[in-house]
């Protein structure tokens, strides 16, 4: 197999930074497997994936990754508890039918959970809705309302509230700006809820 150095979105590099070497990783919604391959090559992780799209699964398996075709909403239940060190859900939770159930499963399956979200509280989003009165289109939210896969959008503050409700501990949190640069998310994050285009959370179930 050829050695590739996949070009990752800056956000995926930040996620990769959160993963400890030689750990077991499940990437839910792994796309074409770029993040998993990066983790397998650079951190020697045992990399597994779930992907809904046929093309993504085929591309991932062709890269030599262990990926199954499946749906986060229906197929996470079959995974045993604590089967992975990290479960990653990158830019996907807002597209699931039951984000709370999905997050509960992630916290059950992984010792740690890494979730990245687009922030619907971002000032540009608020401004477009407030001033133009139209559904906002931004870099992270680029689909018009009638064909967006994002059916459960939230703000950073909303997501933090959900982690509280699920008794999940936030180990680390990063605010992501539009260019992909990150900074540590301030707590409780009111300012970042306005200024960050997205966020990345490292979660663990509170024991």
């Amino acid at each position: 197999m050829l050695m590739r150095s996949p070009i990752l979105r800056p956000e995926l590099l930040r996620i990769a930074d959160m993963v400890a070497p030689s750990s077991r990783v499940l990437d839910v919604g792994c796309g074409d497997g770029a993040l998993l391959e990066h983790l397998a090559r650079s951190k020697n992780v045992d990399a597994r994936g779930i992907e809904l799209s046929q093309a993504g699964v085929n591309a991932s398996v062709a890269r030599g990754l262990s990926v199954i075709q499946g749906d986060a909403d229906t197929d996470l239940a079959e995974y045993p508890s604590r089967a992975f060190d990290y479960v990653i859900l990158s830019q996907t939770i807002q597209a699931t039918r039951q984000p709370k159930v999905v997050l509960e499963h992630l916290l059950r399956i992984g010792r740690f959970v890494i979730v990245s979200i687009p922030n619907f509280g971002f000032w540009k989003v608020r401004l477009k809705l407030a001033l133009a009165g139209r559904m906002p289109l931004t870099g992270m939210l680029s689909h018009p309302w009638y064909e967006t896969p994002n059916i459960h959008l939230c703000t950073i503050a909303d997501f933090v509230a959900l982690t509280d409700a699920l008794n999940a501990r936030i180990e680390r949190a990063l605010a992501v700006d539009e260019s992909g640069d990150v900074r540590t998310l301030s707590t409780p994050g009111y300012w970042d809820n306005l200024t960050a285009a997205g966020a990345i959370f490292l979660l663990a179930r509170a024991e």
Partner: protein
Amino acid sequence: MSTLFQPLSTLSGDVGAAIGESVTFDADRALKLDSGGEIKPLTVAWKTYGTLNAQKSNAFLVCHALTGDQYAAGTHPITGKPGWWQTMVGPGLPIDTDRFFVICANVVGGCMGSSGPHDVDPATNQPFGLSFPVITIRDMVRAQAMLLDHLGIEQLFCVAGGSMGGMQVLQWAASYPERVFAALPIATAARHSAQNIAFHEVGRQAIMADPDWQAGDYLSKGTNPRKGLAVARMAAHITYLSEAALHRKFGRTLQDREALSYRFDADFQVESYLRHQGSTFVDRFDANSYLYITRAMDYFDLAADYGGSLAEAFRGSKTRFCVVSFTSDWLFPTIESKKIVHALNAGGANVSFVEFETDKGHDAFLLEVPEMFATLRGFVDAAAEARGLPAKARA
């Protein structure tokens, strides 16, 4: 069509010369069967492609389907056609004979050199016929394991196969997990469905309804139930295709005529095609073998051997799996593959699952599906790397 119905006895001589290699085990190494019986002495016929490396770590077992045999690649000695997996097995193909030592054995119960109902029973000096014991998928795999012992191969790098071959792959992974580094079950199921048992029963009844079947004793009576076997093959062949593929290939096109005949000739191309499939099949296959092998598939229910839990069959498995299905396969539909994947996941196994979009039906695993080749090549190459097999030198 009648010219194709030559007696099987003339065929048997060809088979004897063409089985590749075979081994007959000593009588003290009988094959113990799930039925409680045994095959003694056991003969296994096989073909190999490629070269076994010094570490014996590049052995790649390919398991054939219901009507296949050990000729996965190369030219089939009876039909003169390419081996049944010519698309996958060969130099530079996903199962690369430049890298791997590919082994394909005729299943027990088969008719290409391994022990089967056509063998002569030493007790009676007549062919066994229906006194041959009923065999199972697990019996087939046991016989293959004996062959590997004979060849001095401890661990297989990979076991691959489609349909009944896929059943053997699953059985291998469950029965001998430490002997299987990677497993590639394609278009298969962990148990045969009621619908599939029903189709098989139609085929068996077609054979048994042929007067030339002679209650299974056709070899000693000098007959051959060619018509019954041909009908069984015709019915089964429909199940290997899809409605879309049949329409694409034949539609309602007429065969060698301008108008309907208002008779029962093969007016339609699809009729002519099926008749051809039936008549060429009987030239290379034994009717009683067809009964025994379909029975083995019907009896297959892997979970039943593990307290009803398929996950238990694979508990703690270190094998790397790639489970494959096809969108238009209604004989072994994707849901059957998903059940396997669910069980593997529940057991914490390393598994990939790919469903390929094609209209070619169940037979897609034997056909040109370029996307499948690219994906399976990725799986095999990654497994080879993990096994420490050297990458192929690139030209």
